[in-house]
């Protein structure tokens, strides 16, 4: 495992840069635990001050230090996205596996249900639900909601992967050798699914971050908590753009771009490394 990471770091520029960026992001998240300010306290510092020695990213219209609020925002956004991914991909994997392994009628019924859900327009539904729950939404529930909207397509993809794994020669061999189904799934198939899962989870992450930002900006999430989206919301609320206080918006916007690009580079490096064509070139017995 560590060998893989070392290889990736050395030979994949995409992975390298992405990993460095993500390391910085996690440092930022770590800093949030050392923040001198509480995230929900207003008027802790003078309002609307531009970046200076004292306030590294300036202060916002609520009287908060932008830099330290950003650390909370990044932490919360990542948490929400993680929750969404765990739930969404969790359901997706489960359904995909049930559909793929059981086959037959179960598969057909599940597949048609999944197909119907895929076609649902997520944004309008999300907005509908969020607007109904307005005022009662917490970041956690937002994460759950996002997860519940993003399991359909993943489940289709996992099902496809499992179906193709079932057809492979080594599965038949394992069955003939008398391996129990659970053992086959865990020992033979899982190693193939895990890399696929990783790459898929990153794209789920990007989706969740994007939607959290979108919903928060529209004022539909928990506005009392710091997140990248809510920072932008409050920035717009107090007209940061038009009153020349761009640092209030630049911080969360810049952070969002850095985070997504970092994740994307990592997933790019990972998927290129796992690509079966380059894999064959890599799995060599090194002769001295």
């Amino acid at each position, binding site marked *: 495992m560590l060998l893989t990471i070392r290889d990736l770091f050395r030979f994949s520029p995409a992975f390298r840069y992405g990993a460095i960026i993500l390391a910085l992001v996690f440092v930022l998240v770590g800093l949030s635990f050392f923040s001198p300010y509480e995230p929900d306290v207003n008027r802790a510092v003078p309002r609307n001050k531009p970046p200076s020695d004292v306030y590294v990213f300036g202060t916002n219209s609520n009287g908060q230090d932008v830099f330290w609020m950003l650390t909370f925002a990044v932490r919360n956004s990542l948490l929400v996205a993680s929750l969404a991914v765990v739930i969404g991909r969790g359901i997706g994997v489960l359904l995909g596996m049930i559909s793929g392994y059981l086959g037959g009628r179960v598969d057909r019924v599940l597949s048609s249900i999944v197909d119907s859900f895929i076609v649902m327009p997520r944004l309008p539904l999300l907005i509908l639900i969020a607007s109904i729950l307005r005022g009662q939404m917490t970041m956690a529930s937002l994460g759950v909601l996002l997860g519940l909207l993003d399991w359909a397509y993943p489940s289709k993809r996992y099902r496809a992967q499992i179906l193709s794994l079932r057809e492979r020669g080594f599965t038949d061999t394992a069955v003939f050798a008398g391996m129990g189904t659970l053992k086959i799934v865990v020992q033979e198939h899982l190693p193939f699914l895990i890399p696929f899962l990783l790459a898929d989870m990153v794209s789920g992450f990007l989706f969740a971050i994007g939607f959290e930002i979108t919903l928060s900006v529209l004022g539909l999430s928990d506005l009392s908590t710091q997140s990248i989206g809510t920072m932008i919301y409050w920035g717009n609320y107090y007209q940061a753009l038009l009153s020349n206080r761009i640092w209030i918006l630049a911080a969360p916007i810049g952070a969002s771009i850095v985070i997504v690009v970092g994740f994307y580079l990592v997933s790019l490096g990972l998927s290129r490394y796992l690509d079966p064509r*380059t894999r064959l070139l890599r799995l060599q017995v090194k002769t001295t």
Partner: protein
Amino acid sequence: MSNILEAKDLKAYYMTQAFGVRRTVKAVDNISLQVRQGEAFGIAGESGCGKSTLLKVLLGAHEPPLTVVDGTVKYRFDDMEEIDPLALDERGRREIRWKKVSYIPQGSMHVLNPVRRIRESFHDFVRTHKKVSQAESWDMARNYLRDLGLSEEVLNSYPHQLSGGMRQRVTIALATILWPKLIFADEPTTALDVVVQRGVIQLLKDIRQKEGSTLVLITHDIGVHANLADRIAILYAGKVVEEGDTKEVLKNPRHPYTQHLINSLPRLDERSERVSIPGRPPALDNPPNGCRFHPRCPVALDKCRTIDPETITLEPGHRVACHVVAEEVSHAPVA
């Protein structure tokens, strides 16, 4: 009768590097061949012996990671000046391909564009090398197919509507429509049933007869060589181990590998059990030292393990690369 194709000391390796792992596969290692104008030359060998690589290099169609490390390939058409296919640029390739040199792949695979009708594919290939209108190329195609005894209707079909055998024959027509002098055929009968195989072999014979073209035939099927090839070269692990008149080699194989190969073929008269050679061909990224066949050779000598055998000429036109044979020859009484 001059040589239309000459390969000398050809070495072509696959050299790859990915994620810090370097790998060199010596697919073609010191091969020399001469093909006379108008003859049918067969190249035989198992899978993994380097036939396809050799073919790519002889055509000048090699691409990285396949690199020609040493040696030369030369074409000579009708005693005109020599052409080096390895040194041609795109324009040069367009000049000679299909008009002088052509390639018949294993057509029952998917060498025809699935979303284009056959006649459109014909037009694509012809137009590249000859200034014709669509109507003219379709006329050419129709006439040529008729000459070869193939139905004209295929022209309007899509590839998937044709059977494997039909597709192979159409591909052969497509490859030879401009009457190239030198035709390379790569496993033209593999994956086809015997009846269709016969049709394909007959088609190749007809084309050779009509156009007097030279055929270089590459296949593992010795039966096809027996049917079509005038001379044959046996390939093993990237080297030519025996070469000569087809009839002579089949009747009187000298190299241990060739002997086993011939012996493993079914025969009409004998009913004894067919024996195959133990072991498998070596992986070409780490070939055995010395003679590459020595791990599987029943008569291997000590020097076979360390020294690569030289190619010696037994009779005119019959060459072998084997220490055992060399010893026999040098110890034989002078005739």
